[in-house]
């Protein structure tokens, strides 16, 4: 394993260790998803709206909020005792730090999503089992994109006042397009449309991932040195 990968992994492992030290993190993440879904359930008048129409969007909106909440914490952790300065001093590339953070965030968000999908299937009784594989593909594509951007931005906002508000404000314009594409793709998938319908969206998602992961890797160093 090349050095940069090794270092990235060590940073990520540390984050995960901290997060799963107390099971709190993941448990409350799960509860969070459930409750967001509930909030929708009650909000929407279920007689007026067909489950399959809204299930995809609700799935994705839930993920969005869960992700934002999770991302906010990504760097809080580092600032507590300015441990982040320690990371910057260490003889490891900035890129490794970014990747480490990215991995940790992806794992965290992925866990939330893994919990969310079956719950949505359950609450809105939508058949998802037959589509699991393509669905995972869509989710993965979308998630990578916005978590990559989110990780980059949280590195900046966390040092400003109003981090909790500023992060979503900066992030959502970047988050909603992939979110929309993913939602449409999911919708098409669940309503058995031909794959050609989905391909377009997937292409967009893939392009988005490539562009923004690359961009984030290039730009991250700028966000960390004073």
């Amino acid at each position, binding site marked *: 394993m090349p050095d940069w990968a090794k270092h990235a992994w060590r940073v990520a492992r540390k984050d995960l*260790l901290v997060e799963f030290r107390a099971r709190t993190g993941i448990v409350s993440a799960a509860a969070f998803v459930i409750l967001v879904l509930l909030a929708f359930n009650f909000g929407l008048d279920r007689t007026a709206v067909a489950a399959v129409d809204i299930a995809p969007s609700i799935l994705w909106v839930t993920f969005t909020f869960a992700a934002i909440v999770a991302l906010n914490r990504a760097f809080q952790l580092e600032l507590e005792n300015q*441990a982040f*300065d320690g990371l910057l*001093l*260490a003889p490891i590339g900035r890129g490794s730090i970014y990747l480490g953070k990215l991995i940790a965030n992806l794992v965290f968000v992925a866990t939330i999503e893994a919990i969310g999908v079956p719950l949505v299937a359950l609450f809105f009784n939508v058949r998802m089992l037959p589509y699991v594989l393509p669905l995972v593909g869509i989710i993965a594509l979308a998630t990578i994109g916005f978590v990559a951007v989110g990780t980059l931005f949280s590195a900046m906002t966390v040092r400003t006042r109003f981090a909790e508000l500023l992060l979503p404000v900066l992030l959502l314009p970047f988050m909603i397009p992939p979110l929309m594409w993913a939602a449409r793709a999911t919708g098409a998938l669940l309503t058995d449309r031909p794959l050609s319908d989905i391909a377009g969206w997937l292409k967009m998602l893939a392009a988005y991932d490539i562009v923004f992961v690359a961009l984030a890797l290039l730009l991250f160093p700028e966000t960390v*040195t004073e």
Partner: protein
Amino acid sequence: MLLAEGLHHAFGSPPVRALDGVSFTVQPGQTLAVFGPNGAGKTTLLKVLAGLIRPQRGRVQVEGGRRAVGWIGHQPQLYGQLTVRENLRFWASLYDVQAPPDLLKRLGLIEQADRPVRALSRGLVQRVAIARALVHDPRVLLLDEPFTGLDRLASEAFSRLLAQHAAAGRATVLVTHNVEEGTELATDIAFMRAGRFVQLAPRAGRDSRDIALAYRSAIGGASPSA
């Protein structure tokens, strides 16, 4: 081993001049003690030397680069949720080394080794911070009031560590307000004020009383913050 040339840095707007033309070199085996009033720019200087702040003008050269630097700042740079041992293991791993086995013992942290840092008293945390900075046996030590919160035995133990470190031909920059502790270890002494070195001279056998007097005359009875 350590070279600083014409460092200038100002914070925020309106700009506060924290560094205003500081130049010096530290040779192997030398220990430069920096004394100065609050707000003189000592911490900023160390951060610039460590590479945490990019100076607006001037340059810094450290033989051996980032890997060679050990830094103790005002904040301990530890993860409160992790135990002492876990913290050291993590930081060591970033330098691809093993934490020296006797380090915890020498700093009297054996009993605390498996307690989360968050639960430790201030002085104990400071000891961990010291261990963390020495974990990779750095060749250049940048110490910002490292004795803060240490009890007598601990600070004596730490002084011994530093003396050995210097004897082994390492370079040290030590910032402190305690003239006794500072003088004891110093080979060179600088008085800093308002971002400038108003005096930089070898200690030349002066004892702490002489230094205290020299400090007075150099910094003067001016308002403490000047």
